[in-house]
C-alpha cells in the first residue's frame, strides 16, 4: 500500500499546533497541545483517539474552521493562517474538502440531492449552464454508486449509508486534492461501513486523492490508512505505518485501544485480557528531552529520550512474537 508514495512529498505539514479554548480564563481547555505530523501526497493518514482527544479539532483547524492558538499548519507549502480574502479561501477550499460524521445532519433537508451536490459546483462556478451541471451531478452520483434517479430526491428519502454517499459526492464535486473524513463511517451500520470504506478506497485511486481519516477506534482504520497517528488528551502518542502499528503497538495507550476492540469471535473473547490506560503515564514533569522520538523508520513514540531504548527492545520482541490482537 505504501509503495506508491515512495518519494514522499508532504501535502500537509503541521508543526507545534496548539489549540486552547477560553485561553487565559479559569476554564481554559487545552484541546490540542503541541501536535506535529506530516501527511504525504497520495496517502491516507488515519487519526485515531477517543472523544476529547483533539482529533476533530485538528481536522477542523486544518480546513481553517476557526483560528489556531499556536504552531504552524502548511498546506502545499503555504501557511494556512495567511490565506485571506474570499477568492483565496475559495481556492483553498476547492482543493480541500470535508466529509462529516452525521450523514443526516450534514445535508440540507429542504433541498434535493441535485441541489446539494450542484451547490458545491455553483459556489465555485464550475459549470456554464444547467444541463452541464446536471450531467456533472449524474456523473458524481454514479461515481459514488447511486443511480441518477436519486438526483431529484430529498435527504430524508435515503438510508444513512446512501446519505453518506451523497456527502462524499458533494466533497468530490469540486475535484479536491485532499479530503478530511471526520468519523465519516462511525454513524453507520457495520455492513454499510464496509461499503463506504471500500468506496473511499476506490475513489482515492481514481482521483489521486489524499485523505485524513479521523476515527475513534482502530478496527476500520486499518483497511484504509497507510499511516496512523494515535491521539490522547491533545497529544499524538504514536505514529506508525498501519501494518507496523498493528504488529508492534508500542505505546501503552495504543495497546489499550487495541485490546478494547471486541472481536466477532466468542472463543477469543472468553480468553481476552484487556489493558487499561492511565493518562498520567504520558504526563512528564520535566518536558526537556520529551517529544516524538523515532523508534524505527516512520515509527514515532511520544516519550522521554531515555525511554527510546526500552521501546526499541519492546518492538523487536513484539515483531519476533508475531501478532497479538488478530
Amino acid at each position: 500500500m505504501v509503495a506508491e508514495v515512495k518519494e514522499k512529498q508532504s501535502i500537509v505539514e503541521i508543526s507545534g499546533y496548539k489549540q486552547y479554548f477560553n485561553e487565559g480564563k479559569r476554564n481554559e481547555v487545552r484541546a490540542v497541545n503541541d501536535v506535529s505530523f506530516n501527511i504525504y501526497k497520495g496517502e491516507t493518514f488515519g487519526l485515531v483517539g477517543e472523544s476529547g482527544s483533539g482529533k476533530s479539532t485538528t481536522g477542523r483547524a486544518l480546513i481553517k474552521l476557526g483560528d489556531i492558538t499556536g504552531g504552524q499548519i502548511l498546506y502545499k507549502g503555504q501557511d494556512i493562517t495567511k490565506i485571506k480574502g474570499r477568492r483565496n479561501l475559495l481556492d483553498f477550499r476547492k482543493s480541500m474538502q470535508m466529509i462529516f460524521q452525521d450523514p443526516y445532519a450534514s445535508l440540507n433537508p429542504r433541498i434535493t440531492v441535485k441541489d446539494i451536490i450542484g451547490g458545491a459546483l455553483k459556489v465555485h462556478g464550475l459549470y456554464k449552464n444547467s444541463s452541464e451541471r446536471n450531467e456533472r451531478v449524474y456523473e458524481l452520483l454514479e461515481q459514488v454508486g447511486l443511480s441518477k434517479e436519486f438526483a431529484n430526491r430529498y435527504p430524508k428519502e435515503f438510508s444513512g449509508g446512501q446519505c453518506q454517499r451523497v456527502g462524499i459526492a458533494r466533497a468530490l464535486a469540486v475535484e479536491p486534492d485532499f479530503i478530511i473524513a471526520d468519523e465519516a463511517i462511525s454513524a453507520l451500520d457495520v455492513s454499510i461501513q464496509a461499503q463506504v470504506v471500500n468506496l473511499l478506497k476506490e475513489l482515492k485511486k481514481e482521483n489521486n486523492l489524499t485523505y485524513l481519516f479521523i476515527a475513534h477506534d482502530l478496527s476500520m482504520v486499518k483497511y484504509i490508512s497507510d499511516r496512523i497517528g494515535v491521539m490522547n488528551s491533545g497529544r499524538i502518542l504514536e505514529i506508525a505505518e498501519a501494518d507496523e502499528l498493528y504488529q508492534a503497538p508500542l505505546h501503552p495507550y495504543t495497546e489499550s485501544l487495541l485490546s478494547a476492540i471486541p472481536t466477532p469471535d466468542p472463543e477469543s473473547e472468553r480468553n481476552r485480557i484487556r489493558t487499561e490506560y492511565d493518562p498520567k503515564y504520558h504526563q512528564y514533569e520535566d518536558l526537556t528531552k520529551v517529544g516524538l522520538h523515532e523508534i524505527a523508520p516512520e515509527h514515532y513514540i511520544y516519550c522521554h529520550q531515555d525511554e527510546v531504548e526500552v521501546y526499541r527492545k519492546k518492538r523487536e520482541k513484539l515483531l519476533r512474537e508475531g501478532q497479538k490482537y488478530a
Partner: protein
Amino acid sequence: MDNTNVLEIKDLAISFKTFEGKVQAVRGVNFELKKGETLAIVGESGSGKSVSTKAVNRLLPKKNSIIESGQILFEGKDLLTISDKEMQEIRGNDIAMIFQDPMTSLNPTMQVGRQIAEPMIKHQHLSSEKARNKAIELMRLVGIKNPEQTHKHYPHQFSGGMRQRVMIAISLACEPKILIADEPTTALDVTIQAQILSLMNNLKKELDTSIIFITHDLGVVAQMADRVAVMYAGQIVEIGTADEIFYNPMHPYTWGLLASMPTLDVNQTDLYNIPGSPPNLLHPPVGDAFASRNEFALAIDFEQEPEMFKVTDTHYAKTWLLHNEAPDVTPPAEVVRRKAKYQRLFAEKKINNQVGGEVVGSRG
C-alpha cells in the same frame, strides 16, 4: 443458567401507519428468553430489533403503531392484553430497559441519585431516605466514584460513560428479572464500552438477570451473548447459541455480516461487503426478503418464503439453502475459516453448547 423461559414472544407482528402506507416493521417474530441468559439481537437499522423489544415494555407510540398479531408471555400473562395499570407495575420493576443515548434518556433537571431512587420509591415503596441510600450503593456497584457526593450531581456533570452507568443503576434498582439493553454502548468510546460491557457481565452473574442485548456490532455480541438472534427485514433469519452463529452460520445474511466485520489481522486488506440496502417494508418483497442482496439466492428465493429449518435443537435458520434439495454452495472465505474453527473447537471440547450435538447440516 437453567432452562425455564422468563419471556416468550410468539408470532409477533407490528406495523406503523405512515403517510405512504403501512410499514410492516416486524413480520412474525418468535423467540424465548431463558432465565439468566443473554440473548443478543443483531441486525441493521430498520430490521425491527428495537421495535420488537419496545413492544415488550409497551413503549411503542399508541398513535401510529398497530400490533397485528402475536403474544408476549411473561409469567403467564400476555403483556399485549393486560391493562395499562398492570403494565406500569411490570415496567421498570420486572422488565427494565437501558437506552442507547444516556443524555436524552436521563432527566437533565433532576439529580442522578433521585433518578436512581425513583423506581424504588414507586415500585418497592421504600422511604425516600432508604431509597437514597440504596441509590448510593447502586452507584458504587456500577463503578461511579465517590457516590456520597456525586449522587447530588446532574447528568450534564457526568461523562458519557458515567451517564450510561447511571442508566444501568436505574435499570437495576428494582432487581429486574429481564433487562433490555438497546445499543447501550454504541455512543461510547471503545475503552469505555469495554468497561460497561464487563460491568454488565458481572452484574448478570451476580443478580441472575436475563438480558436482551440489542446491537449491530458483532464484536460486542461475541463478548456478551449466550444466544444470538439475527434479524433482517422484520424477521429472525437465524437463531442459535453464540458459538453456532459465529462458527457455524447457515444463513447467507449472517455470512455477510460476519465477513464484513473488520479484523485486526494485518494480512487482510480487502473488506467484504453486502451489496445494496435493506428492502422497503412498505411493500415487503415476495419470497425471501434477503434474496435481492444475496449472491447465493436460488430461484425459489424470489417466489416463496423459506421456513425456519432446524440445524440443531438450539439452531434454526430461515434459508432455502438448508433444504435437502438445495445445491451445495461455498460461503465466503471468512465463513469457511470460521467453520473450520468450529470443527477444531469442537474436537478440543471448547464449545459452549449446552445441547452438545454433533455438527450437523454443515454443508458447504
